[in-house]
């Protein structure tokens, strides 16, 4: 079945009128056809207003990575009319369809696990209830963890079905962090919108701020000047380096390898401090604004940053060499928490989790914006799909991002840091994609007839990837849950928003 789709590069706004409409009845077939042609699902997000005939209109966004294009379709869901669930043919749609159902009452028939994503019947009277998945039989026991966990970590509930130490099934129930971020963003003034975007997942503030600003700029038809694009890239890669280094340290800690935990924990802070020099915040807040960046770097400041990067890089190599050379570490990393390539693809995983399972998928290469159109960072991937592969992909990415940061800082470019941002064009929609350290961050935005923002949907990479963690646990030991969880290190707030 061929489907009419409006294709455009990511981050390029298209008139809503040019996006073909499709009935929900044919959506599953259409998505299956698109997938067969090389596309994957980026998002299903509600649009504003009620379509003619009632119900809900949603923007379905797919990406064809090889063709460097994203495609959009407007799907119309009729109230109370069941439609064939996309999830039945495309498992990667499962969370999107659950969210549309719980928020808007769409009715995906044959959805295999139609359970609320963020609403809990025991906390909210009137919310639809749904039992946890249960395994029955002799010797089967259940482990329940959360929402308040043992460490300094966000809340979520994990329900494990086990036979002895072996995990047969992990169900992840989230939603505790739901703040209504998108609704708040739509109601807010521009400065607050940016603050909300930075706070979708605060350990990925640069990536989300950048995706938000790319969306705002695309709707207005303006591009940030080159010096700003460079500093945006530097900040995004510094954020990636800091997060990956922190994750490697935390993985070392989870297998009881203290030298790695101590050294890499410190080095994460050193990289955050470079972001602090650049932006005034250890998480890069305040740097990226619609139209460009707020702060520049003169030649002396660039030199100072490069000088500080040297010892950090040297210590990082030493810490990583020691970590990946320790048999006690390798024996715990290797073969633990495997996600097969086919499963990663079916679930629509993104970021290091996808690349560790052999999927060559990186928005910096596939859907480049700004400086990434000129400075290509090689894509790092692995094959095994285990904790080791996810750790190694991170370390490879750290090294490649360091090269990028060095190259970009070496060139002093004078010029304006911001471009004026005119009013958004009416009746347009955009999907801005940024490869954050967890993977693809998508910010979808649409404007109404007066140019006002009417729809906004944030897709944190965690939204795709939590299902990957659930699969990774199968057949592993209960005691490996923290290690597997850390090897994904997903955002609860980013998922719940």
């Amino acid at each position: 079945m061929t489907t009419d789709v409006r294709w455009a590069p990511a981050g390029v706004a298209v008139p809503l009128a040019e996006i073909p409409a499709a009935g929900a009845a044919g959506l599953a077939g259409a998505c299956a056809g698109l997938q067969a042609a090389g596309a994957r699902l980026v998002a299903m997000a509600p649009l504003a207003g009620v379509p003619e005939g009632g119900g809900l209109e949603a923007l379905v966004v797919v990406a064809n990575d090889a063709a460097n294009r994203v495609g959009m379709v407007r799907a119309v869901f009729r109230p109370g009319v069941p439609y064939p669930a996309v999830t039945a043919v495309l498992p990667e749609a499962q969370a999107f369809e659950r969210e549309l159902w719980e928020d808007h009452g769409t009715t995906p028939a044959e959805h295999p696990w139609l359970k609320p994503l963020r609403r809990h019947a025991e906390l909210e009277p009137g919310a639809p209830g749904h039992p946890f998945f249960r395994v029955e039989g002799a010797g089967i026991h259940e482990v329940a963890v959360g929402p308040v966990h043992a460490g300094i970590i966000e809340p979520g509930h994990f329900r494990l079905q086990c036979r002895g130490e072996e995990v047969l099934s992990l169900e992840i129930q989230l939603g505790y962090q739901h703040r209504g971020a998108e609704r708040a963003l739509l109601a807010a003034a521009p400065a607050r919108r940016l603050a909300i975007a930075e706070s979708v997942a605060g350990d990925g503030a640069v990536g989300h701020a950048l995706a938000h600003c790319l969306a705002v700029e695309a709707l207005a038809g303006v591009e940030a000047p080159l010096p700003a694009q460079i500093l945006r890239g530097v900040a995004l890669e510094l954020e990636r380096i800091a997060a990956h280094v922190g994750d490697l340290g935390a993985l070392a800690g989870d297998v009881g390898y203290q030298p790695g935990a101590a050294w890499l924990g410190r080095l994460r802070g050193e990289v955050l401090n470079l972001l602090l020099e650049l932006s005034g915040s250890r998480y890069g807040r305040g740097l990226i604004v619609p139209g460009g960046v707020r702060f520049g770097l003169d030649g002396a400041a660039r030199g100072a940053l490069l000088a500080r990067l040297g010892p950090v890089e040297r210590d990082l190599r030493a810490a990583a060499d020691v970590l990946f050379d320790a048999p006690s570490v390798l024996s715990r990393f290797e073969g633990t928490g495997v996600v097969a390539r086919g499963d990663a693809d079916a679930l629509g995983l993104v970021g290091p989790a996808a690349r560790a399972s052999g999927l060559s998928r990186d928005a910096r290469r596939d859907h480049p914006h700004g400086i990434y159109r000129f400075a290509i960072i090689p894509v790092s991937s692995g094959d095994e799909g285990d904790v080791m592969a996810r750790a190694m992909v991170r370390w490879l990415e750290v090294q490649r991002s360091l090269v990028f940061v060095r190259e970009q800082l070496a060139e002093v470019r004078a010029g304006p840091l911001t471009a004026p941002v005119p009013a958004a064009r009416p009746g347009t929609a955009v999907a801005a994609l940024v490869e954050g350290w967890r993977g693809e961050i998508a910010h979808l935005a649409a404007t109404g007839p007066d140019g006002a923002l009417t729809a906004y949907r944030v897709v944190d990479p965690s939204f795709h990837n939590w299902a990957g963690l659930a699969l990774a646990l199968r057949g592993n030991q209960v005691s490996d849950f923290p290690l597997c969880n850390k090897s994904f290190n997903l955002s609860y707030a980013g998922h719940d928003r």
Partner: protein
Amino acid sequence: MIRILWERLRGGRRTSGYPDRPVTLPARFRGRPRLDPARCTDGCRACAAACPTAAIRTDPLALDLGACLFCPVCVEACPEGAIAFTPDHRLAARSRDDLVERGAGPRYAAALDAQARRLFGRSLRLRHVAAGDCGGCASELNALSNVVFDLARFGVGFVASPRHADGIVITGPVTPNMAEALRRTWEAVPGPKLVIAVGACAISGGPFAGGAFGLAGVPGDLKVDLYVPGCPPHPYTILDGLLRLLGRLEGEAGA
């Protein structure tokens, strides 16, 4: 093994000299704002209008650090230079009103009373509850335990169970789905116990204040013993607050 020992030797001691030695943060770091109300011109509300979280009032000029996201929007909006951020990280306060900066100088957090200091002064165990935390504040709480900040050297640490804790650290605007878990965690902590609110979200709702859920941070029936503003607060800001609370830093110390 030789490599580990060699790298360990080469690395040397990495723990910061704080609080005996001064903290030096970059010039761009946005810490305690400096207000100069005398520069305000009549009727100008540019800063207040620009502030993303309505943290600023004019006539007279006042900035609520509990709502402030420490973005420089107000500084850019002011035509008279009446607001500037300084790199001073010392921001924590004991009362909500002490967080309101009016240009009359800081009101640092005062120590607990003598009895509480006897109980907690040398050993304070805290349980963290993220209640809508974006991950920013949690990251900085985690950073406190790395070798640089080394929270343990002050006798302060985070524990896994509220049953082992002397108090809770709350981050996030307290989402509806976390309200019950937060209340139960608080009830599980044996008394006497402390409440510490870390970050703009926990103190006021931050960028999520109001909205469809009416988010406002720590619920009113939990008496907060220490407010640590920031978005997120720098680890030194949190440390400063904790050490002042325990009576281990006073006045202008710990700069």
